[in-house]
């Protein structure tokens, strides 16, 4: 596909010294921790934003904070760009390398270091997967709340980089609200600790700044997260409506009534069909829009909350209300939702947008999204976190048709601008990466961006870390 988004030009001096750099890295790391044969570099050339790919100079796969620090110190000294990588599931291109960069992959750092159930904390290396955190304490009745759809694969380090969310953050918050501390390596190889088991830290909230910084400020090697006692029970319920507008209005009224379910997920007709064909979750196919509303608590608490939600849904002419009858059914309902992106990938290429809008704008933005995609002659499936206004339109296209691919990208950009224009933002949980980098000026004034870049410069004045990402390539002079 035609590449509309430019990368920084590779540093010629770095490319010229490739062999030397590889030799030096071989001295720093054991053989199994360094990838440098071109054919073996291919798996690292992109992430889940697959339209763009670059073969990196080398891939370092350190096993400890000390090895991370050694690689970073070296790259800092010789001006070699570094691209941190967790599991490579970024939807915004956050982990896509560049030709002059060493990829710093954290996948070998996958050990859980400490579980403290009395204090409800867990400390782990950055390459531990999101789901492994909850799995490690599930038997004791605890869980880790943020649950991105990619949770089987994605790592806590990547989650911190992107401040990841998930379906259940309506009630429990996103990564930044559940992160207590990190061990982090600065660009010059200095190791620092921010936060810990205490709920807050002294001084400026550097932990809050680092969370969601997309590998621009340093590399997190260990994290301490907050655990929560699992609810007594949880029950997802399907609500089918004739139209997206009715479903959107129902969401707004549920929130306005002061009811906060754990999750309110939205699917439109194309998304329902795609997910049902894949997961056989029992989604109704004769409706125009579907809400998955999950409530939790004891049986009687869930009954009471559901009764209130059903009453509101009836005011919006709900067609189908389907409660699941077993844990297996509940798991299937979530499987359908969480595999939405993968299931979509089976029928077409797609790009997934991630803008967040104020709840009052949901219906309007859904309608405009359809119009925008229609205008480009493409199809869209909407599947997203309605309770917090985080939209995920999946724009379907054929990647082998350059014209269609360009149209899909253009439609996506129009949709994101719309999100900003109604008072929202470009990205709710996937990050800016390269994908939304050049739209940053649509959301922020130059002075806002310059302040961010000045803060960035406090950490990495030489733009060594993930340099092609987040900030427009022009106008970086302030740093």
């Amino acid at each position, binding site marked *: 596909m035609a590449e509309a988004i430019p990368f920084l030009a590779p540093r010629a001096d770095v490319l010229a010294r490739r062999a030397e750099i590889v030799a030096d890295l071989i001295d720093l790391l054991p053989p199994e921790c360094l990838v440098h044969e071109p054919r073996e570099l291919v798996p690292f050339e992109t992430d889940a934003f697959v339209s763009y790919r670059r073969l990196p100079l080398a891939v370092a796969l350190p096993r400890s904070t000390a090895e991370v620090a050694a690689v970073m110190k070296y790259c800092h000294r010789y001006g070699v760009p570094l691209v941190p990588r967790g599991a490579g599931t970024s939807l915004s291109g956050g982990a896509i390398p560049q030709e002059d960069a060493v990829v710093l992959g954290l996948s070998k750092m996958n050990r859980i270091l400490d579980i*403290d*159930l*009395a*204090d*409800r*904390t867990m400390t782990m290396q950055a390459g531990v997967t999101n789901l492994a955190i909850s799995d490690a304490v599930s038997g004791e*009745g*605890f869980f880790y709340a943020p649950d991105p759809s990619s949770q089987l694969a994605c790592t806590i380090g990547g989650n911190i980089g992107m401040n990841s*969310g998930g379906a259940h953050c309506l009630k429990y918050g*996103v990564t*930044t*609200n559940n992160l207590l501390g990190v061990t982090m390596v600065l660009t010059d190889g200095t190791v*620092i*600790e921010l936060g*810990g*088991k*205490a*709920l*807050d*830290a*002294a*001084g*400026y*909230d550097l932990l*809050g*700044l680092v*969370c969601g*910084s997309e590998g621009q400020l340093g590399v997190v090697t260990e994290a301490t997260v907050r655990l929560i*006692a699992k609810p007594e029970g949880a029950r997802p319920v399907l609500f089918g409506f004739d139209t997206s507008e009715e479903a959107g209005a129902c969401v707004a009224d549920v*929130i306005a009534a*002061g009811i906060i379910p754990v999750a309110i997920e939205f699917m439109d007709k194309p998304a329902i069909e795609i997910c049902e064909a894949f997961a056989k979750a029992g989604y109704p196919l004769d409706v125009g829009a579907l809400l998955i509303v999950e409530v939790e*608590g*004891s049986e*009687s*608490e869930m009954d*009471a909350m559901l009764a209130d939600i059903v009453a509101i849904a009836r005011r919006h002419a709900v067609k189908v209300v389907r409660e699941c009858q077993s844990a297996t059914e509940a798991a299937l309902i979530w499987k359908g939702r969480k595999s939405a992106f993968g299931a979509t990938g089976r029928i077409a290429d797609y790009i997934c947008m991630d803008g967040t*809008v*104020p*709840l009052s704008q949901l219906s309007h933005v859904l309608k405009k999204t359809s119009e925008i995609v229609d205008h480009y002659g493409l199809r869209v499936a909407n599947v997203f*976190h309605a309770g*917090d*206004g*985080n939209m995920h339109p999946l724009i379907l296209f054929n990647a082998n048709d350059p014209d269609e691919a360009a149209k899909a990208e253009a439609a996506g950009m129009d949709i994101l601008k719309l999100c900003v224009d109604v*008072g929202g*933002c470009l990205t709710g949980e*996937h*990050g*800016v990466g390269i994908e*939304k980098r050049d739209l*940053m000026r649509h*959301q*922020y004034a130059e*002075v*806002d*961006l310059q*302040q*961010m870049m*000045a*803060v960035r410069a406090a*950490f990495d004045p030489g733009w060594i870390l993930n340099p092609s990402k987040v900030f427009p390539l022009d106008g970086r002079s302030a740093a």
Partner: protein
Amino acid sequence: MSEFRPATEAEVASIARDHAARGAALSVVGGNTRRGFGNAVPARSMLRSTALSGIVTYNPGEMVMTARAGTPLAVVEAALAEGGQMMAFEPADHRPLMATDGEPTIGGVFAANISGPRRFVAGAARDSLLGVRFVNGKGEIVKAGGRVMKNVTGLDLVKLMAGSHGTLGLLTEVTFRVPPRPKAEETLVVSGLNDAEAAEAMAAAMALSVEVSGAAHLPLTVAWKFLGGKLPEGEATVLRIEGLPGSVDMRAKKLTDTMARFGTVTRLDGGQSAALWREIRDILPFADGTLRPVWRVSVAPGVGHQLVAALRLEAGVDAFYDWQGGLVWLRMEAEPEGDLVRRYIHALGGGHATLVRAAPSARAATQSFQPQPEAVALLSRRVKESFDPAGIFNPGKMG
């Protein structure tokens, strides 16, 4: 001390530019009810947000409010009460403790990241803050974040501004989450536990799926000061449950069953419960009209009681616990003993201590905020310079 009360962002920007050009320091304040926080600031002029006042937008259906920074907290709370919503982080009123007067502002609450009992489950002020507008030390009007609940667009400068105590800029506008106010609440009092037993009981409560939203332990020396002496006799370990009325009752019963193992359980109804948590929030036992040093200590929940036990061997100290034991309020009999307090915190696995109240002489001899390791301190200095290169805003306040 001369005082500036700009009514527009443009005026703030012009004052900042003027002071930056002259390298003249400004003391940045809102309602100034928390004066005494931080190190003394050597400034001859005060920059106040109080004329930047008023709620800008509030639509309860979106669970978000935008207010200008100088808006009195009371005005925000009244509007939220009408909308059936709240600030989940329960900001404390420090006037009783600090013996100050004036009206706290919403900007001051966020600038100092003031967070009360519900913080340990619902997040701090910084977790509720979605967007800010501020004027930095170069006199630039900057916005960060937005007004939606999920936003990862660019660096999260919002978190930096929360808790920066006016050292990075003057907040001019804040946008924050306002979730529904629980319709009912109840508090269980477990009586007669010592500090270590209380820590164990609170951890057991937090491991149950009953959603405890307040967990504090009030030792004998302070328990009698709450609710006008009406708490049951003895040490009081208090656990709050909030939500829909039927659900609160059911969960309270379940919690009572588990807590009965630890001690005698009594239940406080909604009115008493609300009053009790307000008093805990406002550090009532130490609001004694004196300047005896008061520390706010943040450690791992299980460590709080160990810290107090260690300190008691070496200093005259009174204490009570919030956040399941992770927030310790310490009142020293005489000197702040900062080195001692911080040495034990370090020895017990880390955390930090902030000197909230002290006599001016004691304050001058003690760093209010916990000194940081050199590498972190260096980063913090660079961050400060990136906002305020001339160092005009509250210089030295945070160390």
